[in-house]
């Protein structure tokens, strides 16, 4: 847990992400107190292994939202990439180290198609990605190896390159801490999530491309006037979302040792909820990687906490909806207060 707060210390804490970290901590404390056996090493382990890929998806979803768009199709891209990996591995018999790059490429390509639809065909992001949601999910069923080759329905993927993603490291043991306290084992998927977080956070906050993303989202017209190739930035944003969906798909396929036709169904809504709770404003141009990642783990903590408390999960649906509404309300409050402060400041100045 300490690692979360070390990372957040580096990122300059704006009031939105501070409030989220505060809320996350409060939720953890609440469940530690009320849910039996929540405060155990294995809960942390479950949170890491069960929700790292959700965090990656939420971080990916942030990019289209940052450029004033939305991507409803990342759940379907997860399913599609999962099925591609299944087919390449069990039907194509390709070695794992070849499949990994191909899978990432497929995800990025599927994302880029969304970008092209939005930019060149000038479709509204909601409609474009709604159409590709349906199309990619249909494609997943169409190319499903389990239906094409009936024998495969019960054969798991064994390629070490693919299943290797599901390994755990006894970090506690290495650091010699496990003698003092019962440390959780850290899954590789969590490490991948951290790596994706660092790369995307750096990409977003300290590279030219990141600056262009914020500029395009913040003031589309001014960005074009400042010579930024706005169309390419938008396509890249959707491609990044597709890439993150591919990474998430690889983690899930390793976790289940197979790919199902309905893999990732409904995850786009969770990713959007996590991103918005994480302070990514739907108006574009505001938000970073720390918020969506923490938002995903917040939703995970709630699901696990409720289950340990014996509360039926559909209560989790209600709570997620309520938190999302609160986060948006808070975001609105912030912008209204800033507006009032701005006008007050300018009149006071004259």
């Amino acid at each position, binding site marked *: *847990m300490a690692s979360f707060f070390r990372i957040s210390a580096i990122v300059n804490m704006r009031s939105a992400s501070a409030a989220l970290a505060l809320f996350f901590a409060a939720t953890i404390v609440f469940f530690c107190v009320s849910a039996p056996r929540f405060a155990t090493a294995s809960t942390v382990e479950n949170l890491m292994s069960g929700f790292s890929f959700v965090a990656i998806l939420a971080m990916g979803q942030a990019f289209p939202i940052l450029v004033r768009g939305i991507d409803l199709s990342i759940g379907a891209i997860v399913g599609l990439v999962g099925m591609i990996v299944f087919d390449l591995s069990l039907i194509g018999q390709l070695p794992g180290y070849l499949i990994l790059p191909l899978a990432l490429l497929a995800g990025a390509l599927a994302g880029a198609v969304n970008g092209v639809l939005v930019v060149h065909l000038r479709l509204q992001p909601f409609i474009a990605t709604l159409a590709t949601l349906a199309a990619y999910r249909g494609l997943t069923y169409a190319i499903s190896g389990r239906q094409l080759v009936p024998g495969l329905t019960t054969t798991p993927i064994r390629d070490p390159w693919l299943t290797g993603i599901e390994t755990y490291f006894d970090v506690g043991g290495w650091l010699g801490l496990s003698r003092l306290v019962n440390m959780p084992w850290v899954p590789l998927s969590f490490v991948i999530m951290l790596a994706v977080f660092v790369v995307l956070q750096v990409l977003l906050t300290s590279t030219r491309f990141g600056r262009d993303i914020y500029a395009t989202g913040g003031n589309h017209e001014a960005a074009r006037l400042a010579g930024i190739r706005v169309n390419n930035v938008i396509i890249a944003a959707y491609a990044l979302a597709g890439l993150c969906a591919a990474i998430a798909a690889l983690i899930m396929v390793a976790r289940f040792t197979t790919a199902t036709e309905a893999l990732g169904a409904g995850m786009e809504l969770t990713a959007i909820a996590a991103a918005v709770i994480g302070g990514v404003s739907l108006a574009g141009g505001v938000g970073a990687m720390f918020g969506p990642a923490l938002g995903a783990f917040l939703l995970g903590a709630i699901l696990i906490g409720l289950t340990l408390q014996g509360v039926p999960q559909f209560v989790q649906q209600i709570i997620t909806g309520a938190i999302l509404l609160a986060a948006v309300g808070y975001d609105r409050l912030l912008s209204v207060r800033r507006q009032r402060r701005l006008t007050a400041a300018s009149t006071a100045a004259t």
Partner: protein
Amino acid sequence: MQEEKTNDRRNFLKTIALGSAAVAGVGAGMFSAPGDRSLAIGVPRARAEGTRYKTAFIQWQPHTVPAAWSKGIEEVLGPQQVIDYELLDGQNKVEVQVSLVETLISQGAAVIFLQPIDSVALAPSIAKAKRAGISVITLNIDATEPHASHVEMNHYYGAMDIAKAMGDAMGGKGKVAILNAPPGIIIRDQRTNGFVDGLKKHHPDIQVVADQVADWDRKKAQDVLNTILAANPDLGGVYGVNDSMALGAVDVAKEKGLLGKIAIFGNDGETAALESIEAGELTGTQYTDVYQQGRLAAPAATVLATGGVEAGAFAQQSRLLMPYVIATKANVGSIQPSQRW
């Protein structure tokens, strides 16, 4: 401007203070349960007096059949004060079922009942549960990873008998349609292959003209059957891979006045199906006493949880095929109300 800066810093400090409290809380929890890890060494857990055993059933999604199993299990486990039982919802998503299995492992559950959404996807989680010394009992849908025991309805042979009964009702000839489960589930293949092999064996000249997915859902079955009927109005028989889909077929037949002309068979034998048979609408179904299935699965759990017998001790995964009855108008009366779920 200055006011803005301090506001950020105050927020930041508050977060650190609360955050450390949370870490402390989690840390304390870790201290309190070092004993947890000793299981891996294989020594059976010392049963201190008064400890309770946690068991849970992860269904694929709320539905009449899993609800009935749960009732059966509860009937057996309930009176034993020592065991806590809980019904969990897999939300029809493999990632949710996997996450729930891991949560139960961290809860130190003794036995997990599982109706896997996908036989392969849940295998790694079952392996993990076994490593944690937890026995897994699967219901109706087996998993590729060997585990404590599997209690299932007799899908294959049951389906063969359905085919035979349906063929008899249709006079040995005509066209038949199958309302099937979504792909990727073992019992879809068992129940479909059983039915098709049954037709080949008993009624070779009955022809299967349609096999459409209706996602276990009554409304979906209504839509799918409507279009199949449009293509083959002279349909003689409909086989619903579960009762919900069969009852959907009954709705359509009733609406189109074809009740007498089409033989409709379901599978599972839930109360609504039995009543429909009594009302002369549904021709028949493979009835399994699902309460009984729950009741049979439960004692295995108790033994595994309290009796100190390790799941690993079993040489080979035990399988229990439930007895079944092809219930038709003739013998449906023999199923007692207490057996109806």
